[in-house]
Protein backbone atom coordinates (compact mmCIF):
# COMPACT_ATOMS: atom_id res chain seq x y z
CA UNK A 1 0.00 0.00 0.00
CA UNK A 2 2.77 2.38 0.95
CA UNK A 3 4.69 1.35 -2.18
CA UNK A 4 1.64 2.17 -4.28
CA UNK A 5 1.20 5.59 -2.75
CA UNK A 6 4.93 6.26 -3.12
CA UNK A 7 4.63 5.35 -6.81
CA UNK A 8 1.68 7.66 -7.12
CA UNK A 9 3.43 10.52 -5.47
CA UNK A 10 6.52 9.93 -7.65
CA UNK A 11 4.31 10.20 -10.71
CA UNK A 12 2.82 13.35 -9.28
CA UNK A 13 6.24 14.75 -8.51
CA UNK A 14 7.44 14.11 -12.07
CA UNK A 15 4.33 15.75 -13.50
CA UNK A 16 4.69 18.70 -11.16
CA UNK A 17 8.38 19.12 -12.05
CA UNK A 18 7.54 19.06 -15.77
CA UNK A 19 4.84 21.69 -15.28
CA UNK A 20 7.14 23.86 -13.22
CA UNK A 21 9.93 23.54 -15.78
CA UNK A 22 7.58 24.53 -18.58
CA UNK A 23 6.38 27.53 -16.58
CA UNK A 24 9.91 28.62 -15.70
CA UNK A 25 10.97 28.35 -19.36
CA UNK A 26 7.83 30.11 -20.63
CA UNK A 27 9.26 33.67 -20.93
CA UNK A 28 11.76 32.42 -23.52
CA UNK A 29 9.11 30.56 -25.47
CA UNK A 30 6.22 32.98 -25.74
CA UNK A 31 5.80 36.57 -26.88
CA UNK A 32 5.02 39.50 -24.61
CA UNK A 33 1.28 39.28 -25.13
CA UNK A 34 1.10 35.62 -24.17
CA UNK A 35 3.32 36.35 -21.22
CA UNK A 36 0.83 38.86 -19.84
CA UNK A 37 -1.90 36.26 -20.36
CA UNK A 38 0.21 33.81 -18.36
CA UNK A 39 0.59 36.44 -15.63
CA UNK A 40 -3.18 36.76 -15.53
CA UNK A 41 -3.59 32.97 -15.38
CA UNK A 42 -1.13 32.65 -12.49
CA UNK A 43 -2.79 35.58 -10.74
CA UNK A 44 -6.13 33.75 -10.85
CA UNK A 45 -4.44 30.48 -9.88
CA UNK A 46 -2.95 32.22 -6.85
CA UNK A 47 -6.14 33.99 -5.79
CA UNK A 48 -8.18 30.84 -6.46
CA UNK A 49 -5.84 28.81 -4.28
CA UNK A 50 -6.26 31.38 -1.51
CA UNK A 51 -10.05 31.23 -1.78
CA UNK A 52 -9.88 27.44 -1.86
CA UNK A 53 -8.43 27.44 1.67
CA UNK A 54 -11.71 28.82 2.95
CA UNK A 55 -14.20 27.03 0.70
CA UNK A 56 -12.36 23.93 -0.51
CA UNK A 57 -10.80 23.03 2.83
CA UNK A 58 -13.07 24.48 5.48
CA UNK A 59 -16.34 24.63 3.51
CA UNK A 60 -17.05 28.32 4.08
CA UNK A 61 -18.41 29.88 0.87
CA UNK A 62 -17.05 33.40 0.42
CA UNK A 63 -18.38 35.46 -2.47
CA UNK A 64 -16.57 38.59 -1.38
CA UNK A 65 -12.87 37.89 -1.85
CA UNK A 66 -12.57 41.03 -3.97
CA UNK A 67 -12.70 42.83 -0.60
CA UNK A 68 -9.29 41.46 0.45
CA UNK A 69 -7.81 41.98 -3.01
CA UNK A 70 -9.03 45.56 -3.22
CA UNK A 71 -8.15 46.51 0.34
CA UNK A 72 -4.60 45.16 0.05
CA UNK A 73 -4.13 46.76 -3.35
CA UNK A 74 -5.23 50.11 -1.97
CA UNK A 75 -3.04 49.88 1.13
CA UNK A 76 0.10 49.07 -0.87
CA UNK A 77 -0.68 51.60 -3.59
CA UNK A 78 -1.41 54.38 -1.10
CA UNK A 79 1.79 53.68 0.83
CA UNK A 80 3.73 53.70 -2.44
CA UNK A 81 2.25 56.82 -3.99
CA UNK A 82 1.97 58.94 -0.85
CA UNK A 83 4.93 57.80 1.24
CA UNK A 84 7.17 56.04 -1.26
CA UNK A 85 6.99 52.79 0.70
CA UNK A 86 7.72 49.78 -1.49
CA UNK A 87 5.27 46.95 -2.18
CA UNK A 88 6.93 44.35 0.03
CA UNK A 89 6.70 46.61 3.06
CA UNK A 90 3.21 47.51 1.87
CA UNK A 91 2.42 43.81 1.89
CA UNK A 92 3.49 43.66 5.53
CA UNK A 93 0.82 46.27 6.24
CA UNK A 94 -1.77 44.72 3.93
CA UNK A 95 -1.59 41.18 5.30
CA UNK A 96 -2.60 42.05 8.88
CA UNK A 97 -5.29 44.39 7.61
CA UNK A 98 -6.81 41.76 5.30
CA UNK A 99 -6.58 39.13 8.05
CA UNK A 100 -8.21 41.53 10.50
CA UNK A 101 -11.02 42.21 8.03
CA UNK A 102 -11.49 38.49 7.56
CA UNK A 103 -11.50 38.10 11.33
CA UNK A 104 -14.20 40.75 11.77
CA UNK A 105 -16.43 39.18 9.12
CA UNK A 106 -15.73 35.70 10.45
CA UNK A 107 -16.34 36.72 14.05
CA UNK A 108 -19.65 38.41 13.25
CA UNK A 109 -20.82 35.54 11.06
CA UNK A 110 -19.72 32.58 13.15
CA UNK A 111 -20.64 34.07 16.54
CA UNK A 112 -24.14 34.79 15.31
CA UNK A 113 -24.42 31.42 13.52
CA UNK A 114 -24.68 32.94 10.06
CA UNK A 115 -23.89 30.03 7.76
CA UNK A 116 -24.21 28.70 4.24
CA UNK A 117 -25.87 30.98 1.75
CA UNK A 118 -26.38 33.65 4.41
CA UNK A 119 -22.67 33.70 5.11
CA UNK A 120 -21.95 34.01 1.39
CA UNK A 121 -24.30 36.98 1.12
CA UNK A 122 -22.75 38.60 4.20
CA UNK A 123 -19.35 38.44 2.47
CA UNK A 124 -20.85 40.06 -0.65
CA UNK A 125 -22.36 42.76 1.56
CA UNK A 126 -18.99 43.66 3.08
CA UNK A 127 -17.31 43.78 -0.33
CA UNK A 128 -20.09 45.99 -1.71
CA UNK A 129 -19.87 48.17 1.37
CA UNK A 130 -16.17 48.67 0.69
CA UNK A 131 -16.81 49.33 -3.00
CA UNK A 132 -19.25 52.13 -2.34
CA UNK A 133 -17.20 53.45 0.56
CA UNK A 134 -13.98 53.69 -1.48
CA UNK A 135 -15.96 55.12 -4.38
CA UNK A 136 -16.93 58.07 -2.19
CA UNK A 137 -13.72 58.42 -0.18
CA UNK A 138 -11.76 61.43 -1.38
CA UNK A 139 -8.57 60.40 0.44
CA UNK A 140 -8.10 57.47 -1.97
CA UNK A 141 -9.32 59.52 -4.96
CA UNK A 142 -12.82 58.02 -4.87
CA UNK A 143 -14.28 56.90 -8.14
CA UNK A 144 -11.62 58.67 -10.23
CA UNK A 145 -9.25 55.91 -9.20
CA UNK A 146 -5.74 55.58 -7.85
CA UNK A 147 -2.83 55.44 -10.30
CA UNK A 148 0.71 54.28 -9.75
CA UNK A 149 3.37 56.27 -11.61
CA UNK A 150 4.44 54.44 -14.75
CA UNK A 151 7.88 55.35 -16.04
CA UNK A 152 10.30 53.51 -18.25
CA UNK A 153 12.58 51.59 -15.95
CA UNK A 154 16.13 50.89 -17.09
CA UNK A 155 16.31 47.63 -15.19
CA UNK A 156 13.94 45.44 -13.25
CA UNK A 157 13.58 46.66 -9.70
CA UNK A 158 12.33 43.69 -7.76
CA UNK A 159 12.23 45.60 -4.48
CA UNK A 160 9.86 48.22 -5.88
CA UNK A 161 8.13 45.81 -8.31
CA UNK A 162 8.79 48.06 -11.27
CA UNK A 163 9.96 46.51 -14.49
CA UNK A 164 9.28 44.22 -17.42
CA UNK A 165 6.41 41.71 -17.65
CA UNK A 166 8.91 38.84 -17.29
CA UNK A 167 9.78 40.02 -13.78
CA UNK A 168 6.11 40.15 -12.79
CA UNK A 169 5.71 36.74 -14.31
CA UNK A 170 8.42 35.22 -12.13
CA UNK A 171 7.11 36.98 -9.05
CA UNK A 172 3.59 35.61 -9.47
CA UNK A 173 4.96 32.19 -10.48
CA UNK A 174 7.01 32.06 -7.29
CA UNK A 175 4.00 33.17 -5.25
CA UNK A 176 1.76 30.56 -6.86
CA UNK A 177 4.34 27.84 -6.21
CA UNK A 178 4.74 29.02 -2.62
CA UNK A 179 1.04 29.03 -1.89
CA UNK A 180 0.73 25.61 -3.52
CA UNK A 181 3.35 24.27 -1.11
CA UNK A 182 1.69 26.07 1.79
CA UNK A 183 -1.69 24.53 0.95
CA UNK A 184 -0.07 21.13 0.46
CA UNK A 185 1.20 21.25 4.03
CA UNK A 186 -1.88 22.96 5.45
CA UNK A 187 -4.26 20.30 4.19
CA UNK A 188 -2.09 17.57 5.72
CA UNK A 189 -1.66 19.33 9.03
CA UNK A 190 -3.72 19.06 12.17
CA UNK A 191 -5.51 22.29 11.31
CA UNK A 192 -6.21 20.98 7.79
CA UNK A 193 -7.84 17.83 9.14
CA UNK A 194 -9.96 19.92 11.48
CA UNK A 195 -11.05 22.03 8.51
CA UNK A 196 -12.04 18.96 6.52
CA UNK A 197 -14.00 17.67 9.48
CA UNK A 198 -15.85 20.99 9.69
CA UNK A 199 -16.47 21.00 5.94
CA UNK A 200 -17.90 17.50 5.94
CA UNK A 201 -20.07 17.80 9.03
CA UNK A 202 -19.81 20.69 11.41
CA UNK A 203 -22.09 19.17 14.04
CA UNK A 204 -20.01 16.01 14.13
CA UNK A 205 -16.79 18.03 14.25
CA UNK A 206 -18.06 19.90 17.28
CA UNK A 207 -19.21 16.66 18.82
CA UNK A 208 -15.71 15.19 18.69
CA UNK A 209 -14.37 18.26 20.43
CA UNK A 210 -13.13 20.50 17.63
CA UNK A 211 -13.44 24.18 18.46
CA UNK A 212 -15.22 24.87 15.17
CA UNK A 213 -15.50 28.61 15.78
CA UNK A 214 -11.76 28.95 16.21
CA UNK A 215 -10.84 26.82 13.19
CA UNK A 216 -13.33 28.55 10.93
CA UNK A 217 -11.79 31.84 12.06
CA UNK A 218 -8.34 30.50 11.14
CA UNK A 219 -9.66 29.53 7.69
CA UNK A 220 -11.04 33.00 6.98
CA UNK A 221 -7.93 34.74 8.29
CA UNK A 222 -5.46 32.52 6.44
CA UNK A 223 -7.46 32.85 3.24
CA UNK A 224 -7.70 36.63 3.57
CA UNK A 225 -4.01 37.00 4.43
CA UNK A 226 -2.93 34.87 1.47
CA UNK A 227 -5.32 36.72 -0.85
CA UNK A 228 -3.69 39.95 0.29
CA UNK A 229 -0.62 39.42 -1.90
CA UNK A 230 -2.87 39.06 -4.95
CA UNK A 231 -4.16 42.58 -4.30
CA UNK A 232 -0.68 44.09 -3.93
CA UNK A 233 0.44 42.31 -7.08
CA UNK A 234 -2.64 43.48 -8.96
CA UNK A 235 -2.01 47.11 -8.00
CA UNK A 236 1.62 47.05 -9.09
CA UNK A 237 1.05 45.07 -12.27
CA UNK A 238 -1.88 47.07 -13.62
CA UNK A 239 -0.84 50.37 -12.01
CA UNK A 240 -4.42 51.49 -11.46
CA UNK A 241 -7.17 50.83 -8.97
CA UNK A 242 -10.82 51.75 -9.38
CA UNK A 243 -13.26 50.86 -6.58
CA UNK A 244 -15.90 50.02 -9.22
CA UNK A 245 -13.54 47.39 -10.59
CA UNK A 246 -11.45 45.92 -7.78
CA UNK A 247 -14.26 45.53 -5.25
CA UNK A 248 -17.01 44.53 -7.66
CA UNK A 249 -18.90 41.29 -7.20
CA UNK A 250 -17.83 40.20 -10.68
CA UNK A 251 -14.21 40.25 -9.47
CA UNK A 252 -15.10 38.00 -6.57
CA UNK A 253 -16.83 35.67 -9.01
CA UNK A 254 -13.83 35.66 -11.36
CA UNK A 255 -11.61 34.58 -8.48
CA UNK A 256 -13.79 31.64 -7.52
CA UNK A 257 -14.67 30.36 -11.00
CA UNK A 258 -11.19 28.86 -11.42
CA UNK A 259 -11.24 26.61 -8.34
CA UNK A 260 -14.85 25.56 -8.96
CA UNK A 261 -14.17 24.68 -12.60
CA UNK A 262 -10.84 23.09 -11.74
CA UNK A 263 -12.07 21.10 -8.78
CA UNK A 264 -12.94 22.49 -5.40
CA UNK A 265 -10.85 21.34 -2.44
CA UNK A 266 -8.03 19.98 -4.61
CA UNK A 267 -4.56 21.50 -4.87
CA UNK A 268 -4.35 21.41 -8.65
CA UNK A 269 -7.93 22.53 -9.23
CA UNK A 270 -7.35 26.27 -8.87
CA UNK A 271 -4.31 26.16 -11.16
CA UNK A 272 -5.96 24.03 -13.82
CA UNK A 273 -9.17 26.06 -13.57
CA UNK A 274 -7.27 29.31 -14.13
CA UNK A 275 -5.62 27.84 -17.22
CA UNK A 276 -8.91 26.50 -18.56
CA UNK A 277 -10.89 29.70 -18.00
CA UNK A 278 -8.37 32.30 -19.08
CA UNK A 279 -7.29 30.04 -21.93
CA UNK A 280 -10.91 29.73 -22.99
CA UNK A 281 -11.44 33.49 -22.88
CA UNK A 282 -8.29 34.11 -24.92
CA UNK A 283 -9.19 31.40 -27.42
CA UNK A 284 -12.63 32.95 -27.86
CA UNK A 285 -10.95 36.32 -28.40
CA UNK A 286 -8.73 34.84 -31.08
CA UNK A 287 -11.58 33.00 -32.83
CA UNK A 288 -13.81 36.07 -32.74
CA UNK A 289 -10.96 38.17 -34.11
CA UNK A 290 -10.28 35.67 -36.88
CA UNK A 291 -13.90 35.77 -38.02
CA UNK A 292 -14.03 39.55 -37.68
CA UNK A 293 -16.83 39.28 -35.14
CA UNK A 294 -16.65 42.42 -33.04
CA UNK A 295 -20.06 42.02 -31.46
CA UNK A 296 -19.87 43.16 -27.83
CA UNK A 297 -21.14 40.43 -25.57
CA UNK A 298 -20.78 37.56 -28.05
CA UNK A 299 -17.59 36.34 -26.39
CA UNK A 300 -19.21 36.37 -22.96
CA UNK A 301 -22.20 34.40 -24.21
CA UNK A 302 -19.90 31.62 -25.42
CA UNK A 303 -17.97 31.86 -22.18
CA UNK A 304 -21.20 31.43 -20.22
CA UNK A 305 -22.24 28.48 -22.38
CA UNK A 306 -18.87 26.80 -21.78
CA UNK A 307 -19.19 27.34 -18.02
CA UNK A 308 -22.65 25.85 -18.19
CA UNK A 309 -21.45 22.79 -20.10
CA UNK A 310 -18.57 22.19 -17.70
CA UNK A 311 -20.73 22.47 -14.60
CA UNK A 312 -23.41 20.19 -16.09
CA UNK A 313 -20.96 17.59 -17.39
CA UNK A 314 -18.30 17.63 -14.65
CA UNK A 315 -19.89 18.17 -11.24
CA UNK A 316 -16.54 17.79 -9.42
CA UNK A 317 -14.64 20.04 -11.81
CA UNK A 318 -12.07 19.24 -14.47
CA UNK A 319 -9.18 18.06 -12.30
CA UNK A 320 -10.56 15.00 -10.43
CA UNK A 321 -11.53 13.06 -13.60
CA UNK A 322 -8.36 14.22 -15.36
CA UNK A 323 -6.27 13.11 -12.39
CA UNK A 324 -7.84 9.67 -12.52
CA UNK A 325 -7.04 9.50 -16.22
CA UNK A 326 -3.42 10.44 -15.53
CA UNK A 327 -3.36 8.01 -12.60
CA UNK A 328 -2.30 10.78 -10.22
CA UNK A 329 -5.57 11.18 -8.33
CA UNK A 330 -5.13 13.14 -5.14
CA UNK A 331 -5.91 11.26 -2.01
CA UNK A 332 -9.48 12.32 -1.34
CA UNK A 333 -8.82 14.96 1.28
Amino acid at each position, binding site marked *: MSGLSAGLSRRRAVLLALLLAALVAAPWLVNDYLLTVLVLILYFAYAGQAWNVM*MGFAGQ*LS*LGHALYVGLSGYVAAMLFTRLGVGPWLGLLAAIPLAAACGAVIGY*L*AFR*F*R*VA*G*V*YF*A*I*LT*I*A*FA*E*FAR*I*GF*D*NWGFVNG*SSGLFLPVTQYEHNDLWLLRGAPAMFYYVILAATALVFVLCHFLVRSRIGYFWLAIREDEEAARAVGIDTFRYKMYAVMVSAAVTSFAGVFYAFFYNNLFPEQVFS*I*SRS*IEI*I*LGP*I*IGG*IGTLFGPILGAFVLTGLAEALNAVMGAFGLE*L*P*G*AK*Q*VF*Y*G*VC*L*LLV*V*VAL*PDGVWPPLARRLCVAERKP
Partner: protein
Amino acid sequence: MPLAVYLNVAVGGVLTGLVYGLMALGLSVIFGVVRVVNFAHGEMMTVAMFIAVVLFSWFHLDPLIMLVPIAAVLFAFGYALQASLINPFITRPEHSQFLLLVALAIIIANALLIMFGPDARSVQTSYAYDSFQLGPLIVDAAKLYAGAAAIMFTAALFAVFRFTPVGKAIRACADNYTGALVVGLDVTHLYALTFGLGAACVGAAGTMLVLLIDPTPMLGPGYTLLAFVIVITGGLGSMPGALVGGVLIGVTEALAGLLFTPSVKSMFAFAILVLVLLFRPQGILGRRLA
Protein backbone atom coordinates in the same frame (compact mmCIF):
# COMPACT_ATOMS: atom_id res chain seq x y z
CA MET B 1 -35.55 71.28 4.00
CA PRO B 2 -39.21 71.27 4.98
CA LEU B 3 -40.76 68.11 6.35
CA ALA B 4 -42.97 67.78 3.26
CA VAL B 5 -39.90 67.10 1.13
CA TYR B 6 -38.84 64.20 3.33
CA LEU B 7 -42.39 62.93 3.40
CA ASN B 8 -42.67 63.03 -0.40
CA VAL B 9 -39.39 61.23 -0.82
CA ALA B 10 -40.38 58.66 1.79
CA VAL B 11 -43.69 57.96 0.05
CA GLY B 12 -41.86 57.59 -3.25
CA GLY B 13 -39.52 55.17 -1.47
CA VAL B 14 -42.44 53.13 -0.14
CA LEU B 15 -43.96 52.77 -3.62
CA THR B 16 -40.64 51.87 -5.26
CA GLY B 17 -39.99 49.55 -2.33
CA LEU B 18 -43.21 47.66 -3.02
CA VAL B 19 -41.95 46.89 -6.53
CA TYR B 20 -38.56 45.86 -5.08
CA GLY B 21 -40.47 43.70 -2.63
CA LEU B 22 -42.33 41.91 -5.42
CA MET B 23 -39.04 41.23 -7.16
CA ALA B 24 -37.51 39.89 -3.96
CA LEU B 25 -40.60 37.81 -3.33
CA GLY B 26 -39.71 35.79 -6.42
CA LEU B 27 -36.31 35.01 -4.96
CA SER B 28 -37.83 34.15 -1.61
CA VAL B 29 -40.41 31.78 -3.10
CA ILE B 30 -37.77 29.98 -5.16
CA PHE B 31 -35.33 29.63 -2.29
CA GLY B 32 -38.02 28.77 0.21
CA VAL B 33 -39.26 25.81 -1.82
CA VAL B 34 -36.60 24.69 -4.29
CA ARG B 35 -33.69 25.61 -1.97
CA VAL B 36 -31.76 27.08 -4.90
CA VAL B 37 -30.43 30.63 -4.70
CA ASN B 38 -31.32 32.26 -7.99
CA PHE B 39 -28.17 34.18 -8.83
CA ALA B 40 -29.71 35.05 -12.20
CA HIS B 41 -32.64 36.84 -10.56
CA GLY B 42 -31.67 40.35 -11.62
CA GLU B 43 -30.94 39.15 -15.13
CA MET B 44 -34.39 37.57 -15.36
CA MET B 45 -35.81 40.91 -14.35
CA THR B 46 -33.86 42.72 -17.07
CA VAL B 47 -35.35 40.26 -19.56
CA ALA B 48 -38.83 41.30 -18.43
CA MET B 49 -37.86 44.96 -18.59
CA PHE B 50 -36.64 44.66 -22.16
CA ILE B 51 -39.76 42.75 -23.21
CA ALA B 52 -41.80 45.64 -21.81
CA VAL B 53 -39.62 48.20 -23.59
CA VAL B 54 -39.86 46.39 -26.93
CA LEU B 55 -43.64 45.96 -26.67
CA PHE B 56 -43.99 49.63 -25.86
CA SER B 57 -41.74 50.98 -28.59
CA TRP B 58 -43.10 48.66 -31.32
CA PHE B 59 -46.76 48.34 -30.49
CA HIS B 60 -47.31 51.13 -27.95
CA LEU B 61 -48.52 48.61 -25.43
CA ASP B 62 -48.54 50.18 -22.01
CA PRO B 63 -46.49 48.28 -19.38
CA LEU B 64 -49.49 48.36 -17.01
CA ILE B 65 -51.55 46.38 -19.53
CA MET B 66 -48.69 44.03 -20.31
CA LEU B 67 -48.05 43.20 -16.65
CA VAL B 68 -49.86 39.87 -16.68
CA PRO B 69 -48.75 38.72 -20.18
CA ILE B 70 -45.10 39.44 -19.41
CA ALA B 71 -45.40 37.71 -16.05
CA ALA B 72 -46.85 34.72 -17.95
CA VAL B 73 -43.90 34.68 -20.36
CA LEU B 74 -41.45 34.73 -17.47
CA PHE B 75 -43.47 32.00 -15.77
CA ALA B 76 -43.01 29.77 -18.82
CA PHE B 77 -39.32 30.65 -18.92
CA GLY B 78 -38.88 29.85 -15.23
CA TYR B 79 -40.82 26.61 -15.52
CA ALA B 80 -38.73 25.42 -18.47
CA LEU B 81 -35.49 26.45 -16.77
CA GLN B 82 -36.22 24.55 -13.59
CA ALA B 83 -37.60 21.50 -15.38
CA SER B 84 -34.60 21.20 -17.70
CA LEU B 85 -31.41 22.72 -16.33
CA ILE B 86 -31.79 23.38 -12.65
CA ASN B 87 -33.65 20.29 -11.49
CA PRO B 88 -30.60 17.98 -11.75
CA PHE B 89 -28.75 20.46 -9.53
CA ILE B 90 -31.10 20.53 -6.54
CA THR B 91 -29.11 17.83 -4.75
CA ARG B 92 -25.72 19.25 -5.74
CA PRO B 93 -23.66 21.44 -3.38
CA GLU B 94 -24.28 25.17 -3.20
CA HIS B 95 -21.20 26.20 -5.13
CA SER B 96 -22.24 23.99 -8.02
CA GLN B 97 -25.70 25.59 -8.16
CA PHE B 98 -24.08 28.98 -7.84
CA LEU B 99 -21.86 28.32 -10.85
CA LEU B 100 -24.82 27.12 -12.94
CA LEU B 101 -26.84 30.24 -12.22
CA VAL B 102 -23.90 32.58 -12.64
CA ALA B 103 -23.30 31.01 -16.06
CA LEU B 104 -26.97 31.57 -16.89
CA ALA B 105 -26.73 35.16 -15.70
CA ILE B 106 -23.69 35.80 -17.90
CA ILE B 107 -25.48 34.32 -20.91
CA ILE B 108 -28.70 36.29 -20.36
CA ALA B 109 -26.99 39.63 -19.72
CA ASN B 110 -24.74 39.38 -22.74
CA ALA B 111 -27.47 38.08 -25.03
CA LEU B 112 -29.41 41.23 -24.09
CA LEU B 113 -26.30 43.28 -24.76
CA ILE B 114 -25.99 41.78 -28.25
CA MET B 115 -29.66 42.44 -29.01
CA PHE B 116 -30.11 45.90 -27.52
CA GLY B 117 -26.66 47.44 -27.13
CA PRO B 118 -25.30 48.96 -23.94
CA ASP B 119 -27.47 52.08 -23.82
CA ALA B 120 -30.40 52.67 -21.51
CA ARG B 121 -33.86 52.35 -23.07
CA SER B 122 -36.79 54.33 -21.82
CA VAL B 123 -40.55 54.06 -21.93
CA GLN B 124 -42.37 57.38 -22.30
CA THR B 125 -45.91 56.78 -21.14
CA SER B 126 -48.57 59.48 -21.33
CA TYR B 127 -48.70 59.59 -17.53
CA ALA B 128 -44.92 59.69 -17.02
CA TYR B 129 -45.03 63.21 -15.62
CA ASP B 130 -48.47 63.09 -13.98
CA SER B 131 -48.80 63.34 -10.25
CA PHE B 132 -51.49 63.33 -7.62
CA GLN B 133 -51.65 65.94 -4.91
CA LEU B 134 -52.88 64.93 -1.51
CA GLY B 135 -52.54 67.82 0.88
CA PRO B 136 -48.82 68.51 1.13
CA LEU B 137 -48.02 65.19 -0.57
CA ILE B 138 -47.23 64.98 -4.26
CA VAL B 139 -47.18 61.41 -5.53
CA ASP B 140 -45.89 60.41 -8.97
CA ALA B 141 -48.62 58.64 -10.92
CA ALA B 142 -46.21 56.08 -12.36
CA LYS B 143 -44.92 55.15 -8.90
CA LEU B 144 -48.43 54.92 -7.52
CA TYR B 145 -49.56 52.60 -10.32
CA ALA B 146 -46.43 50.49 -9.97
CA GLY B 147 -46.81 50.19 -6.21
CA ALA B 148 -50.49 49.32 -6.46
CA ALA B 149 -49.83 46.70 -9.12
CA ALA B 150 -47.11 45.18 -6.94
CA ILE B 151 -49.55 44.87 -4.03
CA MET B 152 -52.22 43.29 -6.23
CA PHE B 153 -49.79 40.84 -7.76
CA THR B 154 -48.49 39.84 -4.33
CA ALA B 155 -52.04 39.38 -3.06
CA ALA B 156 -52.83 37.14 -6.05
CA LEU B 157 -49.72 35.06 -5.42
CA PHE B 158 -50.55 34.83 -1.75
CA ALA B 159 -54.02 33.55 -2.67
CA VAL B 160 -52.50 30.92 -4.96
CA PHE B 161 -50.25 29.61 -2.19
CA ARG B 162 -52.88 29.83 0.51
CA PHE B 163 -56.11 28.71 -1.09
CA THR B 164 -55.41 26.51 -4.13
CA PRO B 165 -54.57 22.79 -4.02
CA VAL B 166 -51.42 23.46 -6.05
CA GLY B 167 -50.33 26.08 -3.53
CA LYS B 168 -50.93 23.64 -0.72
CA ALA B 169 -48.89 20.98 -2.53
CA ILE B 170 -46.01 23.43 -3.05
CA ARG B 171 -46.05 24.33 0.63
CA ALA B 172 -45.98 20.64 1.43
CA CYS B 173 -42.85 20.25 -0.72
CA ALA B 174 -41.22 23.14 1.09
CA ASP B 175 -42.07 21.75 4.52
CA ASN B 176 -41.04 18.17 3.93
CA TYR B 177 -39.46 17.05 0.69
CA THR B 178 -39.45 13.34 1.53
CA GLY B 179 -42.98 13.51 2.89
CA ALA B 180 -44.15 15.13 -0.33
CA LEU B 181 -42.59 12.32 -2.34
CA VAL B 182 -44.14 9.71 -0.07
CA VAL B 183 -47.68 11.01 -0.50
CA GLY B 184 -47.18 10.92 -4.26
CA LEU B 185 -46.74 14.54 -5.17
CA ASP B 186 -44.99 15.22 -8.46
CA VAL B 187 -42.17 17.18 -6.88
CA THR B 188 -40.32 17.89 -10.13
CA HIS B 189 -43.44 19.47 -11.59
CA LEU B 190 -44.17 21.40 -8.40
CA TYR B 191 -40.60 22.71 -8.20
CA ALA B 192 -40.84 23.85 -11.81
CA LEU B 193 -44.17 25.54 -11.02
CA THR B 194 -42.59 27.28 -8.04
CA PHE B 195 -39.64 28.48 -10.08
CA GLY B 196 -42.15 29.67 -12.67
CA LEU B 197 -44.13 31.58 -10.04
CA GLY B 198 -40.93 33.15 -8.73
CA ALA B 199 -40.00 34.13 -12.27
CA ALA B 200 -43.51 35.56 -12.77
CA CYS B 201 -42.98 37.80 -9.71
CA VAL B 202 -39.75 39.10 -11.10
CA GLY B 203 -41.41 39.51 -14.51
CA ALA B 204 -44.22 41.59 -13.05
CA ALA B 205 -41.76 43.62 -10.97
CA GLY B 206 -39.57 44.26 -14.00
CA THR B 207 -42.54 45.39 -16.07
CA MET B 208 -43.47 47.89 -13.36
CA LEU B 209 -39.91 49.01 -12.88
CA VAL B 210 -39.56 50.25 -16.48
CA LEU B 211 -41.96 53.01 -15.42
CA LEU B 212 -39.44 54.08 -12.78
CA ILE B 213 -35.99 53.42 -14.23
CA ASP B 214 -34.50 53.00 -17.72
CA PRO B 215 -33.18 49.48 -18.25
CA THR B 216 -29.69 48.58 -19.50
CA PRO B 217 -28.54 45.00 -20.14
CA MET B 218 -26.03 45.16 -17.28
CA LEU B 219 -28.55 46.06 -14.59
CA GLY B 220 -28.84 42.45 -13.42
CA PRO B 221 -26.20 41.91 -10.71
CA GLY B 222 -27.21 45.04 -8.80
CA TYR B 223 -30.81 43.90 -8.60
CA THR B 224 -29.86 40.35 -7.72
CA LEU B 225 -27.99 41.76 -4.74
CA LEU B 226 -30.86 44.07 -3.89
CA ALA B 227 -33.22 41.10 -3.91
CA PHE B 228 -30.91 39.21 -1.51
CA VAL B 229 -30.75 42.16 0.82
CA ILE B 230 -34.53 42.54 0.85
CA VAL B 231 -35.29 38.87 1.28
CA ILE B 232 -32.89 38.44 4.17
CA THR B 233 -34.03 41.68 5.78
CA GLY B 234 -37.68 40.78 5.52
CA GLY B 235 -37.28 37.12 6.38
CA LEU B 236 -36.73 34.26 3.98
CA GLY B 237 -39.85 32.29 3.25
CA SER B 238 -42.15 34.98 4.60
CA MET B 239 -44.29 36.51 1.86
CA PRO B 240 -45.28 39.66 3.77
CA GLY B 241 -41.65 39.83 4.91
CA ALA B 242 -40.45 40.36 1.35
CA LEU B 243 -42.78 43.33 0.93
CA VAL B 244 -41.84 44.78 4.33
CA GLY B 245 -38.16 44.34 3.49
CA GLY B 246 -38.71 45.93 0.10
CA VAL B 247 -40.45 48.94 1.60
CA LEU B 248 -37.78 49.32 4.29
CA ILE B 249 -34.98 49.22 1.74
CA GLY B 250 -36.91 51.45 -0.68
CA VAL B 251 -37.45 54.14 1.96
CA THR B 252 -33.89 53.87 3.26
CA GLU B 253 -32.44 54.27 -0.21
CA ALA B 254 -34.73 57.18 -1.05
CA LEU B 255 -33.92 59.06 2.16
CA ALA B 256 -30.19 58.27 1.95
CA GLY B 257 -30.20 59.58 -1.62
CA LEU B 258 -31.82 62.78 -0.38
CA LEU B 259 -29.64 63.30 2.70
CA PHE B 260 -26.32 62.23 1.16
CA THR B 261 -25.36 61.68 -2.46
CA PRO B 262 -27.42 59.15 -4.44
CA SER B 263 -24.32 57.02 -5.04
CA VAL B 264 -24.05 56.03 -1.37
CA LYS B 265 -27.65 54.91 -1.07
CA SER B 266 -27.00 51.20 -1.52
CA MET B 267 -24.40 51.38 1.25
CA PHE B 268 -27.27 51.92 3.66
CA ALA B 269 -29.10 48.95 2.23
CA PHE B 270 -26.04 46.79 2.90
CA ALA B 271 -25.65 48.25 6.36
CA ILE B 272 -29.23 47.21 7.13
CA LEU B 273 -28.48 43.74 5.75
CA VAL B 274 -25.44 43.35 8.00
CA LEU B 275 -27.38 44.52 11.06
CA VAL B 276 -30.27 42.18 10.32
CA LEU B 277 -27.97 39.21 9.70
CA LEU B 278 -26.23 39.81 13.00
CA PHE B 279 -29.09 40.64 15.29
CA ARG B 280 -32.09 38.97 13.69
CA PRO B 281 -30.78 36.41 11.22
CA GLN B 282 -34.26 35.06 10.53
CA GLY B 283 -35.30 38.49 9.22
CA ILE B 284 -37.88 40.94 10.46
CA LEU B 285 -40.88 38.71 9.85
CA GLY B 286 -39.11 35.38 9.46
CA ARG B 287 -39.54 32.38 11.66
CA ARG B 288 -36.56 31.28 13.71
CA LEU B 289 -34.80 28.48 11.87
CA ALA B 290 -34.22 25.39 13.92
